[in-house]
């Protein structure tokens, strides 16, 4: 499979497991523990037979030894539909000209999708930008390639709301890769609803190093999504800016976590494979 610039990333995340944080609902055989108990080969426990149970699940040997009827309970495993929602607004095209935020967002989307796809989970993609693209979750082999093409063909521009994508995503695990500089309140409300309905929502907050520490000297800062917003940033205002920005980062993470959303902050200086492992690994620890 031609993977282009993502080859090294895919090699680096090969073997990484990304289990669901909770038992998943679903009948399709997969890698994640299911909320359903069935007749798989993975024994879990015995339970006294109740009227209505399938007689084929009765453990006849135990009945013969104890003269009591027990049924064998096994743990089912199911697939976990995962969707990547990638923010492609103008604020992601930063810093110029290398666009580190957008590069990291693309690599995280592909890396996490490849990890999920390796566990036979259907993966999908929604690009929220000037040129919107939605790929429904699929488990077929070519889905990763389609995602790469869609991401490579996108240039961050404009200002698009993420909340509708969160609301309408046809997946149980949503990974929202964004800088949270758009419709944060709406996004938080939509994520809260999805969490309440049993979905797993992960927000990967992309923060550029230049946002944490803008270039020195006086400069006229211009908001790429609202060009009329122009402010001077010089030595006197730098500390105030940094303090406001850090306070906002804390507030957003607190609000998201309070809503049951898993919040992961990703700075552009951190390698994408490391971030993928961190996101998947943390999930594994939480799942364990």
């Amino acid at each position: 499979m031609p993977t282009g610039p993502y080859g090294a990333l895919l090699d680096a995340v090969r073997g990484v497991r990304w289990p669901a944080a909770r038992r998943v609902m679903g009948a399709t055989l997969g890698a994640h523990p299911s909320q359903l108990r069935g007749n798989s080969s993975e024994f879990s426990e015995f339970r006294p037979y109740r009227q209505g149970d399938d007689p084929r699940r009765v453990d006849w040997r135990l009945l013969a030894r104890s003269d009591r009827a027990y049924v064998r309970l096994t743990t089912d495993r199911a697939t976990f539909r995962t969707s990547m929602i990638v923010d492609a607004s103008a604020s992601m095209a930063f810093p110029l000209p290398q666009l580190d935020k957008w590069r990291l967002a693309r690599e995280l989307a592909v890396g996490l999708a490849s990890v999920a796809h390796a566990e036979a989970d259907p993966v999908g993609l929604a690009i929220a930008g000037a040129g919107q693209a939605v790929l429904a979750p699929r488990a077929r082999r070519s889905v990763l390639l389609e995602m790469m093409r869609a991401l490579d063909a996108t240039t961050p521009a404009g200002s698009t709301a993420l909340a509708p994508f969160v609301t309408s995503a046809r997946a149980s695990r949503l990974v929202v890769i964004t800088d949270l500089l758009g419709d944060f309140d709406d996004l938080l409300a939509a994520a809260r609803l999805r969490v309440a309905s049993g979905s797993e929502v992960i927000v990967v907050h992309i923060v550029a190093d230049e946002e944490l520490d803008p270039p020195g000297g006086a400069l006229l800062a211009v908001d790429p999504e609202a060009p009329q917003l122009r402010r001077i940033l010089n030595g006197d205002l730098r500390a105030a800016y940094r303090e406001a920005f850090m306070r906002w980062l804390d507030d957003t993470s607190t609000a998201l976590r309070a809503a049951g959303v898993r919040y992961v902050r990703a700075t552009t200086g951190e390698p994408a494979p490391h971030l993928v492992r961190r996101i998947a690994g943390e999930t594994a620890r939480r799942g364990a």
Partner: protein
Amino acid sequence: MSFLAPWAFAIAGIAAAGMVVLHLVARQRPAAFLLPTTRFIPDQRTLVSRAATRPRDLVLLALRVLLLLSAGAAFARPVVTPRRGSMSRIVLVDRSRAVASVTEATEKAKALLSDGVPTTLIAFDSMPHVLTPTALDSLASVPRSAAIGSLSAALIAARRASALLAESTDSIQLVLVSPVAASEIDSATRRLRAEWPGAIRIERLALRADSSAVWTLQTQLPADDQLGPAMMSSAPGAGVVVTRLVRAMATAADSAFARNGGTVVRWDSTAAVRPVAEGLAVGDEVIVAALGRRAMSTNGEVVARWADGTAAATEARVGSGCLRDVGVTIPAAGDLALHPPFQRIVRTLLTPCGVAAAERSADSVALAWLGGATTNAAQASTLRDADVRPSPLARWLLGIAMLLALVELAVRTRREPEEA
């Protein structure tokens, strides 16, 4: 090149220097930087003062400085002063009827051209004509003009030509190639001569053969005759051709005189006619004065006419002579007879039949004031127009300034989106 309003250029220079200083040490808007987290910057002033450590927008600076200097130079009214030679010359060549030989006049003019001094040639009779040096040869082949020469017209033409020459020379020599006949001097000549600030070098030509020496005026006028003063300038000589002036009816003896080859001019003064304003033309001479019309014979050739075209004097052949009848009466009061134009008319009317009108050289007094008291050429500075006109360079400079303003606007407009 000099400026008529140098203060305008000085102001522009100061403004340009100020602009350079402002450009280097001005309150500048810092470079624009796209920052998605701009909203977290406190909203304060949008301009900061800073001295430019490395000059920016040098093209814009150069355009603005050039714009200011061009506009300042245009408003300073630049005057381009051409390189001046030491001396120029104006030669007035007479070709009027007073000249004996036009060839002699052209030869003298050619001699003046040979020394290499830049020369403007003006040929004149009653009207001046500016000639090119190559036209001088063709002038020699043109017959002498029949018109009376006018030194006044020639001096006016010389004065006009000098205004142009004065821009490119330091001094101007005026040369008059003329016989300087008395008929060429009128009442304006002396005043016009006074307008010329230097000497006039006079190259005398031979006067056309004067017929006054070959005819005699035979008359006996009373002391109070009005024609007396008018005839004072005629001064005929003692030639064999005789004109007899008759102030009453012609007698048989007068007719016999005419038949024998004489000229009888009957200028009757006995008729009492009330004078009114009339125009009278005899040859090239025209006067307007209070004159009376007398009934006269219409036989013969008309030699003088009133302004309405009717005959004022006629001339008829009688035997081998002629009889001239003049129907012009002169008012008893007035100074008409003292006026030179009228005196010339009288002289023409008294000239014997078949004899051309006589020319008389100007007297020594006239020649003296015509030549002037000094021998120096006229200083060009005194001949230049008082109203110095700025050169067309001012308009070009203003156009360049406007063009620079448009270019500056285009460059500035192109730069602003980049900064945004």
